[in-house]
């Protein structure tokens, strides 16, 4: 099998409706699909041999008013051509009240990634067994990784407002 990406592209096109694939099929392949199909596609890809979930990421597209979820998969086994291939599975969900389905039952290491996105982007993953805070201590009005959260303004409003403790001389 020289080019596993090409074969996979054809397979995916025949199995799923309304998807678009990009990339050379050798090193990276981008697959875009509707959000309902993501979980099915993840389990299909896992069965095909892409059993290593490298990353779940999210991009805030403020202009299109959507959040773009990115699942990056690669494979443990398989031949060299297969191991080289990384699949970037993408889907978009609305920015207001974003909800999505959890992938924890398919991939064992998806849980912390989803907790992180829940915290930093405010995405609610339905069916996640423990969607508890991961990193943050304080509560934020807007989830901090969204584009409309201004960290510099936040620092001015919160940290710079706290007075120095000094007795007589120096800074007050």
């Amino acid at each position, binding site marked *: 099998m020289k080019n596993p990406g090409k074969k996979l592209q054809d397979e995916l096109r025949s199995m799923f409706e309304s998807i678009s694939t990009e990339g050379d099929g050798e090193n990276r392949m981008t697959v875009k699909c509707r959000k309902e199909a993501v979980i099915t596609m993840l389990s299909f890809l896992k069965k095909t041999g892409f059993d290593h979930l*490298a*990353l779940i990421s999210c*991009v805030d597209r403020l202009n299109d008013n959507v959040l773009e979820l990115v699942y*990056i998969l690669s494979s443990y086994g398989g031949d060299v051509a297969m191991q*080289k291939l990384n699949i970037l599975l993408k889907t978009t969900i609305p920015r207001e009240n974003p909800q999505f389905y959890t992938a924890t039952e398919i*991939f064992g*290491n998806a849980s912390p990634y989803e907790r992180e996105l829940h915290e930093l982007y405010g995405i609610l993953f339905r069916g996640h067994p423990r969607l508890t805070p*991961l990193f943050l201590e304080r509560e934020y009005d807007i989830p901090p990784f969204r584009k409309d959260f201004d*960290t*510099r303004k936040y620092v001015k409003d919160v940290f710079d407002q706290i007075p120095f403790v000094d007795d007589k001389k120096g800074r007050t």
Partner: protein
Amino acid sequence: MRELELYFGPQHLGMVGNFSITLQVEGDRIVKATANPGFLHRGFEKLMEQRTWIQNFPLVCRINVVEPDHMELMYAMAVEKLAGIEVPERAQFIRSIYLELARVGSHLFGLWAYANMLGFDTVANWAMYHRDLILDLFEELTGGRVYHIYLWPGGVRRDFPEGFEERIRSTLHTIGSCVPDYDDTFFHNRLFYERAHGVGKLSREDACRMGAVGQVLRATGMKKDIRKTEPYAAYDQVDWEIPVRTDGDAYSRIWVVRDEMIESVHMIFKLLDKLPKGEAYQRIPNPFKWKIPESEVYVRCESSRGELGLYLVSDGGDKPCRAHFRTPSYSHGLTILEKALENESIADVGNIMISLYITAPEIDR
């Protein structure tokens, strides 16, 4: 027996880095472990969205303190791919040599932590001293002991100074001449075997299911290394082997670390022999006006902890639109650690944690 909740860290002598685990114990046996990260969260990826492409270099290396160099490489590689910059051949070799030195330094740091944990103070002191010798090389090359900011899109920041190759060789000979001592005192020591053998055991299926990479995976007998599967820098120019063990416990993991260090040193010698002449860097556009066309990229490399990746998105501006680091410690520290600690004793928490090679800043970012 009554269950007890026990807090392990962040202020704890057995804890490496600012990290915390909540243990549910029954007597000495751990029933359930819950990792609690976030003590080092600085929101790096958010900060990177507010700085220009070049300004991000001092920032990315601070994500992982123990080996900042692979972080630099990841960002440099991603920017090169996005902007279409070619790297000269000499720079590729210099990068490989530099990264392998960083790997040896990082493994020596890991060995310090592990030996210290088990009470092998002599070995720990040796390892830290030898790491310092490597830091001296870095200091001569880049001016910084810990953070180097040496890799750059289009090559490296400056060429090797005169006679530097010889100094790399002599330093590595100094360290290499002590390998028998390390073996006698630590690796072939019965105490090390008794403490580490069968502790924190992971089967290959479990490791794959929970996203293990790096030594943790190679200790379960799987030959996987990004330097082989997707060669970057000059790793395809020399011959080298992937060290593998099959038991999947702490003992195998530390042995893989040792073998990897020796392999790295051999690789540096081979790379130095082959080092071509030529330019070590390529001019990049004016960093103040540098804009990168709209595109995205996912790059990955093998850091000393495993597969390290960067998903970088540009929206056509002078700053990144989104950067997301896929760090090896993330799965190791949050998923595998919780599984590996189950049914172990409290005394082995540090043992397992350090053998999994977890660095807290890498998890929190």
